[in-house]
Each structure stands twice: as structure tokens, then as C-alpha cells.
């Protein structure tokens, strides 16, 4: 994997200013009739300087890919961004990324270009995806001027939709990880959280097949239906 990124940086530099790369960035795919068992899904987790998308920034990106019902460990993304100017005092205790690590991190521009290329426009799954979506879209827009919308799916929503009877004692990632007995190697490490989220996604996809939810479109429909059901039950 180290080789892969070196190659990529070489290519980037050799390709001069990086202009052409920006023009050939992948176009996001829409959720259509791709079969869940065939298409590649990105499962992503971000660590940020805080919770406010308006002022806080992304500092680490961890992601794995699901393809043919498996997570291939050779196809993953684990980067800390170079942002020495950022104030991370608020969150350093949670994610453990200190100023020193940030100064040694990757140039944000390189990292995001690489991420876009690696994601290849595939649908992105995340736990409480609205949060990650806001931060990533802001970073892509501000750094690269990239505004094409990816398809986002919330794993936190899929889980109760497919496991309505699960007694998890809460709706957090930890609750579901405990429910499936997962061991999360390093909680609040972007890559480790992404892997745990992806493991839960595997369980969801397994269940989806058994419920005749075969394509991304089916999945979206199922989630829409679930959302409506939730709203109906809501008081008022």
C-alpha cells in the first residue's frame, strides 16, 4: 500500500501542476440497480477538530471498501491531514491526534485528491452519515472546488431498519458494536471506527439479502419506508 501511494504521488508530480487530475476526478454514482452483492461501497469515518461543520475541520480520514460482501484489507484508506494551523485542543483527548502528528500529516489537497480517486465515485456509508457528509463536502469544496454530490447512506439508520428487534440499549456505534460482539481495536481512530462500521454493514447486507433487498435502489426504498414508519410513530 505504501508503494501504491508513492506511485500515486509520483504520478501526481510528474503530471505537472495537478490541473488535469482535477478535471478527471471520478463522477459519483447514483443509487440505482447495482446489486449490493456486486457493487463497491465505501465505509468512511472522519475525525474532526470539533462538531461544528461551519468552523471545524477534518483532521483524519479512515475508510474501507466493501466489495462482494467482503472487506478487503488491501483496499483501505488511513490518513491524517497536515493542518498545523488548526486548533485541536478541544478534541485531542478524543482522537489522540496531537499537533505534532498534524504537522507531519499529508498535504490536505493531495490527500483529498487521493481520496476522491480511491473512492471512485462509489456510494459512501458512514455512521451518522450527515455529520461526515457535511465535513467532507465542505473540505472537498474549499480545498478542491469539488461539488459533485456522492450518494450517502447512514449505517446508523440501516441497522435498526434491518434489525428492528435488536436490544442494543442505545443508538450509538458502541451499542451496535457491543450487540454484535465486535472488538473495536482503537475507538475514535478513524480507520478503526470505519472498520467497525463496515463490519456492521456486512451484517446488514447479509440480512438485506434474506429480505429480498438486492439493489441499492431497494435499499433506499427500504430506508425511505423505515423513515416514514418512524415519523408516523413520532408524537404530533
Amino acid at each position: 500500500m505504501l508503494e501504491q501511494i508513492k506511485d500515486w504521488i509520483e504520478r501526481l508530480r510528474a503530471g505537472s501542476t495537478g490541473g488535469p487530475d482535477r478535471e478527471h476526478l471520478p463522477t459519483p454514482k447514483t443509487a440505482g440497480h447495482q446489486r449490493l452483492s456486486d457493487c463497491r461501497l465505501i465505509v468512511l469515518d472522519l475525525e474532526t477538530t470539533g462538531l461544528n461543520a461551519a468552523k471545524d475541520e477534518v483532521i483524519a480520514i479512515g475508510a474501507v471498501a466493501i466489495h462482494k460482501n467482503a472487506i478487503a484489507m488491501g483496499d483501505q484508506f488511513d490518513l491524517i491531514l497536515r493542518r498545523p494551523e488548526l486548533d485541536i485542543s478541544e478534541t485531542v483527548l478524543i482522537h489522540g491526534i496531537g499537533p505534532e502528528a498534524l504537522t507531519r500529516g499529508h498535504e490536505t489537497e493531495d490527500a483529498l485528491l487521493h481520496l476522491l480517486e480511491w473512492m471512485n465515485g462509489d456510494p459512501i456509508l458512514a455512521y451518522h452519515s450527515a455529520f461526515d457528509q457535511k465535513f467532507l463536502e465542505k473540505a472537498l469544496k474549499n480545498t478542491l472546488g469539488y461539488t459533485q454530490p456522492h450518494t450517502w447512506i447512514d449505517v446508523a439508520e440501516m441497522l435498526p431498519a434491518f434489525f428492528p428487534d435488536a436490544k442494543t440499549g442505545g443508538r450509538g456505534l458502541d451499542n451496535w458494536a457491543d450487540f454484535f460482539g465486535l472488538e473495536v481495536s482503537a475507538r475514535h481512530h478513524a480507520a478503526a471506527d470505519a472498520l467497525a462500521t463496515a463490519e456492521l454493514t456486512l451484517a446488514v447486507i447479509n440480512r438485506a439479502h434474506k429480505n429480498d433487498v438486492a439493489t441499492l435502489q431497494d435499499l433506499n426504498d427500504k430506508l425511505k419506508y423505515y423513515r416514514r414508519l418512524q415519523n408516523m410513530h413520532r408524537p404530533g
Partner: protein
Amino acid sequence: MTAAPQDSERPQNTRAIMTFLREHSPFSNMDDAHLAHFAEHASLRFYADDDVVLSPEDGPVKRFYIVKQGRIRGERSRDKDGETETTFEISQGECFPLAALIGERPTRTLHRASGDTFCLSIEHDTFVMLFSQSDPFRDFCLRGVSSLLDQVNQRIQSGAMASIGGSSSLDTPLERYAIRNPIVCSPDLPVRKAVARMHENNVGSIVITDDERHPTGIFTLRDLRTMVAEEKGPLDTPIGQVMTKNPCCLTAEADAFEAAMLMAEHHFAHICVVDDENRLIGMVSERDLFSLQRVDLVNLARTIGTASHLRTLVSLRTNVSRLVDAMLAHGADSGQVVKIITTLNDVTVRRVLELNIKKNDPGIPFTWLTFGSEGRQEQTLLTDQDNGILFETPEGMTEDQVREKLLPFANTVNKELAECGFTLCKGNIMASNPKLCLSGREWDDWFIRFIDASTPQNLVYSSIFLDMRAVFGPTEPLDALLDKVLARIRKNALFQKMLAGNAITRKPPLTMFRNFRYAPDGKKHNLDLKRQGLAPFVEAVRVFALANGVGEANTLERMRKLADKGVFDPKDANAWQEAYSLIQAIRMRAHQEMLERDEPLSNYINPDDLNPLDRRILRESFRQAQRLQQKLEVTYQL
């Protein structure tokens, strides 16, 4: 994609997988570079409860799997009724399918998830790369769990070693110990000259050979002492008249253990080493074997065998446990140790009998029989009496009259054996029981009834009476009896089938829902190694042995003989022997630990106290027991 802050380091998830792998054998012994290669090329899959992971219909196996979380169970359908049964369970950190992957064939077993399960797997080319580059990995793949057995044995030894010190294996072939060119003479040499020759060469023994260098006798300084003290003859007597005839001989390939056992059994201090044509090539003395090791097996056996009072015998028994520790430390495996214990027990039993005959000879020739574990030579420190008497009725006496003389004698012997630590048999299977003190004819009748009327009670007794051995007295009457019994069983398919049915009632403690099934009659978390672990092997092997005319009572010997006869596949026999020995080893280690803590000995262990490797190997051993029972089921269509 390597994280920037620690450029040389690997991504978090790769590191996490390596950490997981390192907790499990064989990965714990693999290089980091190989583990990293595994982790980077692995993919993670999820299987819900009951999902099929691998099926015989999938074609040749392409991936190597390791259970990251959850459990996999193997299912096969039984030939006879098509019902599916669980053949094995694979839990966290264990790998599959080894044989099919290496044989590049489809798996023969349906692999199904038990509960929510995650498996890591690598593709065939990654497997091949690791297989070719990592020795521990290759060893594990080829030898399976048995490659891990070595680790366990090493640990058992080093544990025992710590308390003893010293090293030198009993597996060493005799040729390494044997003194070349032993001092020899012909039988017509006068004792005086022979002793002079011994003196010149500073040795304690001389071997008497014929013209072709076949050893015909041995003469030692001890013999000289006896000769002088008892005034057996003048010193110019030809040595052939005073030598000990037919000396003990072993070939050079025999190991130190065999020599030690032979010495302990016969109280010899010297053994001739001969070539394939029985020509003398060397000599091994007790001192040669044990001077470095300080294992005083032979000496202990001799002291027991010559003790003049019951009191001495009782006190000597405490040395036996110390000796077992020493033996384990010197590399004796569990099969060797149970034989040592049995040998020392035999010597004790013989001595008790001899002392009683001296005091109060019943005047009737008899053979002292032992049954059950002692009959099988499989005794551990925890042992009780199972014995009987086979006598020849002298002319003019009835069998009841003989019993009148023998029973009081047997009663005393049983009581004295109890004082020596052989617990009285609760089921009264003892020589003092009139039903077990019988003539050859009566025993034969007894066995005819036993075999013909296969009552449930008789089947319970089969584990006792069908494993018998003579410990004292002439062996010929027992051999004759055994011949008849074996011939009868071989002809009686129904009896075999009932024995087989009985042998599979006790299932090895593996189930589909838990790693271990605990002893039904024991405490909640306890596992009975004897009844649940060893008995399935002992009982299944007994059926095959009796059905195929194998006269031996020892379970490992029976397995060897059955492999020789082609009844068992040699690979199966090997796996079963290993599995059986391992359970025995764990049981003996537990006994030693109980002794250290001054606790009463029991066969129960708590699997939670075992380390993960032992637990896994124990479970693999139980799986082998299950396979053996399956063979019985197939053979007898149960």
C-alpha cells in the same frame, strides 16, 4: 496507504489484525513480515447464524480461513439415516479447511456459522506464499493441530524439569549409551578367572557368549557376592554353572526408556545390546542410564521388590509420585509414565503376594489377574484395585475347597494393597470375592455367560473384564483362557455390536453450542478427563481389538496392532494415539499439581484453568475421539 504520522508503520486496521493473529497459534510463532503479508491480503466476511461458509459443492477450496469472531461448525450427513451431525467446531483464532486446501480438493464437510461469525480469509496465492516462506505456518498446515502437541509436551516437560533440573532424554537410542566391546568369556572359564578379568577392566559384569557371540548368560559382582555368601561352590566352578542364564537383550535401536522398563520389571542392572542376529555388540548398565539423570526407577523398583515388610512398601509408595515428576522432566511421554506407574504397581503387588506366601502359603498354584486400567497398563497415581484369581484345581480337591484356602489369603492381600494406596474396589471386583476367585474352567464358563447374555450390567463390566493381564504366577493358564475368549468374541457379531453400541454412549465432551460439555455428574464447570476424555478411546479401541483378535490390553498397543492389521488407517491410528496420549498427559499433570497442593486426586479439571493452547488441543483430541466413535458407528451400522 500508510498513515503519515508514523511512516514506517502500518495502517491501524492492519496492525489490529496482526495483533489478533499474534494471539493464536501458529501465527504467534510467525515473523511479523509474514503476519503483515497475511493481514494486508486478508478480507473479512460476515456470516449470520446457520449461513453456509464452505460447502462440498463449491468445488476445490480456494481460500484459507481463520475465525475472527464467532464459531463455525462442521456438518456431515450420516450414511445410514441421512441425518446431519456436527463433526467439529472451530472457534476464535482457529483455521480451516486445512486438508482440503492442501489437497486442492473440495471440502468434505459443510461448514456452517454458529451464531454471528466473522472470518478473515486469504486467497490461494497468498496462502501458497506464506506456506512456502513461513516454517511455523507450513508445519501447522501439514501437521495440523498435532504440530501444536509438541509445544504442549515441551511445556509439560519444562514445568516438571524446573523442579528437578538436569536433562537427557529417555528417547535416546541405546547405542549412544552402550559400552562397546563388553567384557566377554566362554561358559567353561572358571569364576576366579572371570572375576580377575572384570577386575582388570574395572567393570561389574561379564557376559558369557557362545562361539557365535550370542549372549547366553551374565555374571555380575552381585552374583559373586551371593555365591560366596551362600557357599554355592568353589571359585574354580565353570562360570556357565553359576551365571544368570538368558540375559535381557535389546537391539541398539531400542531407547533408554525400554531398557529402564526392562530393568525395573526384572530388577536387572545390566542389559545386553545385540544386533539383528542376536550377536552381542554392547552392554548397558543401570548406572549408564541414570548416573546423569538421578532417576532412580530401577533402584526404586528393586527396593519395592525386595522389601521385607508391608511397612516398608507403604512408605516406598510416596516415592512413586516423586519419580513420576522426574520421569516427566526427563522426557517420558504420558504413555511411558503410565507404564512406569503400572510397572511399579506390579512390583508392589507382586511383593505383597510374595510376602504373604512366605507368611502363609495357601499351597495352591494360582495366577493373580488384574483388570481394567491396571490390566491395560494405564494406571495413573489415582488407582483402585480390580483383581481376581485364576487357579488350577489340584487332584482330589473341589473348586470350593480350593476357594476356602485362597479366599482368606486374597482377603489379606486386598487389605494390604489398600494400605499401600490401592483403594479397595467399591464394586468388590477383587480376588477376595468368591465370584472372582475361579478355576480355569469356571472362568471359561463365566466368560461364556458374559458373552452370551449381553445384559446392560455385563456391558458395564466389559471395560473391566475384557482388559485383563496376569501380574503374578504362571501366565499360560491366562493365555489359554484369553485364546478361547477372543475366539468366541470374534465369532459373536451380536456381542461385538452391543459392545460397540455401549462404546459410543459416552460422547466426547464437545457439543455444537459450547466448546466443552461438562461432566453431567460433576460440578458445573468441571470436565472429567477419564470418563469423558479417555474412556471414549479406550472403549472404542477395545471393540476393534476384540473383534480382530488383538490380545493386548493396552490401548496404545491395541491401536498399533490394529494399524498393523490394516483395521485402522495408519494416519488415523497415529492421530488417535496422539490425542489419547495428550488427554492422559493433561490428566497426569493435573494429578501432580493436586499432589503439590495436598489435595485429594481427582480426574476433574476446570477447562477455564487451562491455557488457550491446551484447551484447543484438548478439544481437538476430543474431536479425534468423535471420529473414532464414528468409525465404530460405520463399522457396526449403529
